[in-house]
């Protein structure tokens, strides 16, 4: 083993992550990407009306979810949180049931658009289309946890575009005042549909805004999965110690269009697209695992086959699931009793 390999290998170990951990993390990044790609194919094939993608965001999401207690803690996602929701407990089948709007879709029973993930059993709550609304919810959830002394931590995610909404600012203010145990994640891909960062905010990073609310703010390179893990775990430990919220910004590439309803080639140059592809966390994380000798051609092939099998089986399973019965359209407006 070369001297360089030893140094890099030390990195995940120094962070307390086992070889098995980082391989499992890579698996989730790869699974989320394959699921994303499958959803687009299904949409283009006319099997779904709408797809919204998390491609490019998977590395930071998996890393951020890793320190969380999957059973105890809460997650309030946004529509790009595919990888985070997979780590938290949702399956590819769960997500495809939502894509196909089937009766057994665990998020909404076919009532909400695809990509609006929720799964109360896994403590994944609330996604709405107007961006930013999940932030006050998460802060309220964290407040309730603190009041009840349950030790639960809440994580909430949003894109940088959503941080321009009043909800976001009001939530940060409330979270800081009450020292809520919440991790406030912003996945900054520098584009809100087509609007670039410089038209979204006059500050150079979202994280600097934390100072205005009286909480720490930190930025990490979203293509550096281990760094994302490190900063999130630090924030998680702070929350656990009762020291309140942390604003965490991940700088991520947006690899695809905003959603299946737009074409990014209309507002992004070829050069820009080439540049962001170099930051793809699937590639950067794979390169790390290869450097430290954890992924070889053989193990990578095994992993790719495992992912492919899971996506194929999930697609078939979700496709076979029944559509909602039309006469159930009026169900679940109000409480219907046990």
């Amino acid at each position: 083993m070369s001297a360089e390999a030893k140094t890099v290998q030390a990195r995940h170990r120094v962070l307390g992550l086992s070889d098995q951990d980082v391989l499992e993390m890579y698996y989730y990044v790869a699974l989320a990407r394959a699921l994303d790609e499958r959803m687009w194919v299904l949409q283009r094939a006319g099997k779904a009306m709408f797809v919204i993608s998390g491609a490019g965001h998977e590395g930071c999401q998996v890393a951020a979810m890793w320190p969380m207690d999957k059973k105890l803690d809460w997650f309030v996602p946004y529509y790009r949180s595919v990888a985070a929701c997979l780590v938290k407990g949702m399956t590819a089948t769960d997500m495809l049931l939502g894509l196909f709007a089937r009766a057994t879709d665990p998020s909404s029973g076919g009532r909400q658009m695809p990509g609006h993930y929720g799964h109360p059993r896994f403590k994944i709550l609330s996604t709405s289309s107007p961006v930013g609304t999940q932030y006050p919810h998460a802060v309220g959830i964290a407040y309730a946890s603190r009041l009840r002394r349950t030790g639960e931590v809440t994580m909430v995610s949003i894109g940088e575009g959503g941080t321009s909404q009043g909800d976001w600012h009001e939530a940060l203010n409330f979270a800081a005042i009450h020292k809520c145990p919440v991790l406030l994640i912003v996945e900054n891909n520098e584009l809100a549909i087509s609007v670039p960062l410089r038209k979204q905010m006059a500050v150079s990073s979202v994280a600097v805004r934390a100072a205005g609310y009286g909480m720490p703010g930190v930025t990490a390179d979203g293509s550096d999965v281990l760094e994302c893990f490190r900063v999130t775990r630090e924030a998680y430990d702070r929350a656990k110690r009762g020291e309140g919220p942390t604003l965490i910004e991940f700088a991520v590439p947006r690899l695809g269009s905003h959603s299946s309803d737009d074409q990014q080639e209309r507002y992004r140059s070829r050069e820009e697209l080439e540049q962001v592809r170099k930051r793809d966390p699937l590639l950067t994380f794979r390169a790390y695992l290869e450097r430290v000798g954890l992924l070889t051609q053989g193990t990578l092939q095994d992993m790719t086959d495992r992912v492919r099998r899971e996506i194929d089986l999930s697609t078939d399973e979700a496709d076979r699931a029944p559509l909602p019965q039309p006469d159930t359209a009026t169900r679940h407006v109000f409480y219907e009793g046990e």
Partner: protein
Amino acid sequence: MAELTYRDALRSALIEEMDHDRRVVLIGEDIGVYQGTFRVTADLLKRYGPGRVIDTPISELGFVGAAIGMAMLGLRPVVEVMTWNFSLLAMDQIVNNAAKLRYFSGGQVNVPMVIRGPNGAGVQLSAQHSQSLEATYAHFPGLYVVAPATPAEAKGLLRTAIRSDDPVIFLENAALYGMKGEVPDSDFALPFGKAAVARSGRDVTVVAYSRMVFAALTAAEQLAAEGIEAEVINMRCLRPLDAATIVESVSRTHRAVVVQEQWKPFGAAAEIAMRIYEDAFDQLDAPVERVTGADVPMPYARTLEVRAVPHEADIVAAVKKTLGKD
């Protein structure tokens, strides 16, 4: 039975529910140290502490959203909006989130929260503090809309609201907070969607809610002096709407007048009148009349404000019109 003001009836419901259920928390602007703009939360900070009586920053969107989060986690937040007009700042959280979370979770997520505060005009606070928003909120599936007129209703309906597993729009009225009335003791609750006959009569049905119930009752007194017996129905709730009680009454009186405090176009009176046409058209001997406020932003000057809301005389005139006596 005890005689309580409308304000104290609300407050006693909050106290009893907070004693009964630790999940009940209060959240809003100036509800703690200041004890509430209309003193509905007087002394509650001292009783329950700052964990359960939460003074918020000025951020309706933020604290209504936070309350939704608390509710999803199983707390039962009672949000005070200083006036319902300020709820417009939180409209997205109320309409796009609170009202839809159960549906969008396929029935898995409860949102047991109450949003309460003064609605409507009458105390010279001009157009940004005086709007009646009941029809706006009653339009959306997923929200209960309640508008108590008496202290007993204030208490009985607030208890039901706090125990509800869905979001409740609880519309009080600033002009009613000081009004006194008999309130039953003990575990007294009133069901949603059940109107009350506030006065019996055989000649015409007058339908009203909240403060307008009292205008209708005064009008009925005046009409009685002229030999016209008006039946007054107090709706109590707009969603669910108790159409059955109205239809039963109209089947006996064959005439109906619907009263609402403010703007006529697309208002609650239009909905109620249409329900009468749908369910009791054959019973009607005259078209349904509407008595509504002026179609203007509520003015400040007393003389202007008084002119902009309905009065007994307007109700009397409408009743006489249905009887062909105008």
